């Protein structure tokens, strides 16, 4: 057991170990306020150690107060008062319970709210300068600075100077409580004073001090060096796990992912369900909402579209006007829920039991259609008459316009008349009106159309068959050739 950074004479230790009264403190020529400061510092710098000395309990173990790992930018002063495993004398100093004549019982002091001091405690208001001061005790020989007089005294031994360790006179000891000098602070008022000198110093630094310590990895800044050190140890080592199971090492990508993750919808629904249950949300009368058993069938698009409604998570469809779009594709939820739902945040619950690529109930019909075409690319062209494209975002085509495919170039001439513009043949003809009787289109206009690049050819183009080859004059090369392969691939749909 040792006081912070301070060794004890063997005799003292023995005396302490026996729980005997501490010897009187002898003061040297020290100004009064500093005397008080030092006195208390000595006691309270290791309050557990000093108090437990008397009650014969185990020494204070700093490791039991882990550094807070929250993402808040500043450790509040409460962090120095952790939820009580062992007591610290900050709030209800055991000092008062100890008399030098008896071994008091073990009192585990619990930390409550910080800044609720013992009513009998003496209130001390220290100046900001005092609170921020470090190394105020200077050795006259070598000008080395020390935070405590005790340390300085021991140092003076090395210079063969006279030294004396002050010891606390337990009779004089009173509880002290410290107020924050910052007038706007909640701890400025004596009723919310903090009982721990270190605590008040750290509090002042954190809340009202300049943040001088910066984490390199994430550039979070801290006013108190120990906070910064604690953070640096854990920064970057922490991994963030989203509800969907993905692991992130970077906080920012985690946050961005989280905001758009399908799992978010589920959780917030549960969250709000709990809130509702707890009656914390009086504005919304949504208790009926979560009894919905709308198992909206998403199966028009076939088995690939399964987002099987989990009976525990009712699927909700937006009951308001937007859901009209879903007309032919969804069974609408039976009665329209109360109007309040429209403004409620819980309108759509996205249930994703499958990997996020599956659809959500809230997805628009257009999107669902496109999803469908992903899977049944060829068959889906009939679904919506307005679509001239079967689009596929993930279909892999013959990626290279290989030489072999050029052979097919000559084959079916109908492959050539792809309608690059996305218009049907009819519309095309309407536009240009150059149609000849045999179906051959005036090349001078349509060559351009045919030869228009539409980029890569991965997008499926719904082309008509049975159209004659458009003769490619003018520009003398058939860009369409490049699409022969892709049309070939898709022609077999």
């Amino acid at each position, binding site marked *: 057991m040792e006081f912070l950074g301070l060794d004890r004479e063997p005799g003292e230790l023995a005396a302490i170990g026996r729980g005997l009264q501490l010897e009187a403190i002898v003061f040297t020529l020290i100004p009064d306020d500093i005397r008080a400061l030092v006195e208390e510092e000595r006691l309270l710098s290791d309050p557990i150690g000093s108090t437990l000395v008397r009650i014969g309990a185990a020494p204070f173990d700093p490791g039991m107060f882990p550094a807070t790992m929250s993402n808040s930018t500043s450790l509040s002063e409460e962090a120095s008062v952790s939820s009580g495993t062992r007591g610290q004398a900050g709030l209800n100093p055991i000092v008062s319970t100890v008399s030098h004549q008896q071994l008091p019982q073990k009192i585990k002091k619990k930390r409550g709210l910080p800044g609720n001091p013992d009513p009998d405690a003496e209130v001390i208001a220290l100046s900001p300068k005092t609170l921020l001061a470090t190394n105020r005790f200077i050795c006259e020989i070598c000008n080395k600075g020390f935070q405590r007089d005790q340390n300085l005294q021991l140092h003076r031994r090395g210079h063969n100077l006279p030294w004396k360790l002050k010891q606390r006179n337990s009779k004089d000891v009173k509880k002290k409580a410290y107020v924050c000098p910052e007038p706007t602070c909640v701890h400025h008022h004596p009723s919310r004073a903090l009982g721990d000198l270190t605590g008040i110093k750290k509090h002042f630094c954190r809340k009202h001090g300049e943040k001088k310590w910066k984490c390199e990895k994430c550039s979070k800044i801290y006013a108190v060096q120990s906070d910064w050190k604690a953070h640096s140890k854990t920064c970057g080592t922490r991994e963030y796990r989203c509800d969907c199971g993905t692991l992130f090492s970077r906080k920012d990508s985690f946050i961005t992912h989280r905001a758009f993750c399908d799992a978010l919808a589920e959780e917030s629904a549960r969250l709000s369900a709990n809130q509702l249950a707890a009656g914390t949300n009086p504005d919304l009368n949504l208790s009926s909402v979560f009894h919905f058993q709308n198992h909206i069938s998403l199966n028009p698009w076939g088995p690939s579209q399964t987002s099987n409604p989990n009976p525990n998570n009712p699927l909700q469809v937006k009951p308001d006007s937007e859901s009209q779009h879903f007309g032919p594709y969804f069974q609408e939820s039976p009665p329209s829920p109360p109007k309040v739902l429209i403004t409620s945040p819980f309108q*759509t619950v996205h249930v994703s039991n499958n990997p996020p690529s599956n659809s959500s109930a809230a997805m628009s019909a257009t999107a669902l259609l496109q999803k469908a075409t992903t899977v049944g690319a060829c068959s889906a062209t009939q679904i919506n008459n307005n679509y001239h494209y079967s689009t596929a975002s993930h279909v892999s085509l013959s990626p*290279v316009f290989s030489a072999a495919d050029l052979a097919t170039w000559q084959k079916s001439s109908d492959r050539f008349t792809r309608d690059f513009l996305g218009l049907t043949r009819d519309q095309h003809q309407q536009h240009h009106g150059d149609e000849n009787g045999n179906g051959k289109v005036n090349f001078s206009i349509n060559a351009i159309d045919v030869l228009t690049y*539409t980029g890569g050819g991965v997008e499926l183009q719904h082309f008509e068959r049975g159209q004659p080859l458009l003769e490619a004059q003018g520009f003398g090369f058939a860009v369409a050739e490049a699409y022969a392969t892709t049309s070939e691939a898709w022609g077999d749909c």
Partner: protein
Amino acid sequence: MKVSSAKVSKESKVHGGHHKNSLHSKRRSHHSILPLQPSDQLDQWSSVTVDMYSNHHQPQTSHTSTSRSSDYSAGGGNNGEPSGTGNKWASRLLKECARAISDKDSSKIHHLLWMLNELASPYGDCDQKLASYFLQALFCKATESGQRCFKTLISVAEKSHSFDSARKLILKFQEVSPWTTFGHVAANGAILEALDGEPKLHIIDISNTLCTQWPTLLEALATRNDDTPHLKLTVVVTANIVSSVMKEISQRMEKFARLMGVPFEFNVISGLNHLGELTKEALGVLEDEAIAVNCIGALRRVAVEERAAVIQMFRSLGPKVVTVVEEEADFSSTRYEFVKCFEECLRFYTCYFEMLEECFTATSNEKLMLERECSRGIVRVLACDDDQDNEGECERRERGSQWSERLKEAFSPVGFSDDVADDVKALLKRYRSGWELAQPHQNETGLYLTWKEEAVVWVSAWKP
């Protein structure tokens, strides 16, 4: 040169065949003696090109053509060497073609387009991809079909678009490259600092970022202080492609804000053709709100003539801070000089494609989609006339210094604090090497993101 002369005859046959309505022969199988390396083909064919031109068309320029051929072969290395020596063939061919178009040299145009078509592929290496997409634009320019092609590309893209695909794309891109997150982090930092202490915030987000900028801002608002301000977010969507997914986005954002414990309101304005049409009322700006205007890649979509008016419109909203993020390229001052504009376009997109190539895996679907997005922009810039109804798809980028000139008319620059710069540096550290933060030169404002020491993205903050 015997070989090449033999090829001349073959080539002329084939080339002549173009003019005769006959089908292409299987060019490659005829030239089976050639290894199928584009660079080698290039060398052969380019020397052929040169010969043909010198023979048929421009005898007086035979000197230059031989020098050109020597350029080609010198640049391309020796014949028969593997493709490593074929660097930058695309850039040369493309520039040649652009010049030919500008000169209206139609046989040269034909030939170069033909060659490019042979060598180009959207699935190949960087050169092949660039060749492919720029070829498309050049072709449209030559045939004056740019507007139609552009519309086709847009409609194709819209049809394959969905919330999931968009989300996956943008999040993946942000994961592998700080191209977009750079602007987000810097802008968020500037916004947070400018609006610090305000109880009611209103951010007007003019971008197509699908709100990926805002979760981190929401988190910062929630954790920074004890008192979390109320945030109203109004998103102005400029691209048609994005508006369809905004509904889903709005739900997610609202949920997320609830999770964060930030009082939140979300609005979307879409289908806007002209940014200048926005008004305070349309945006729902209230008197007691602290306004921030956030423009990510939005100013370049405004028609060049309207940009000043749009900036004045921002001013009229009375914002506390305006953040602007734009890509560093100049397609606007050269818009009447095709070749110069082309070269700048090529430079920028070469950088971008190379960046994509390095950041993504080789078979990444997201990379492909991003490249395709570029193809639209390329066609738009090079092959479409600006006076046509552009519907907010202008894509004429300007450099940071040029934007600064414009913005200085209505605003004064705000520097980024050291904290924000540190945040950005910490961000860049999380990506692979090659990315740096660059401070601007004198008399310039903002921050630059550099990729391999070339400035690519510019971010700046302004106050009235």
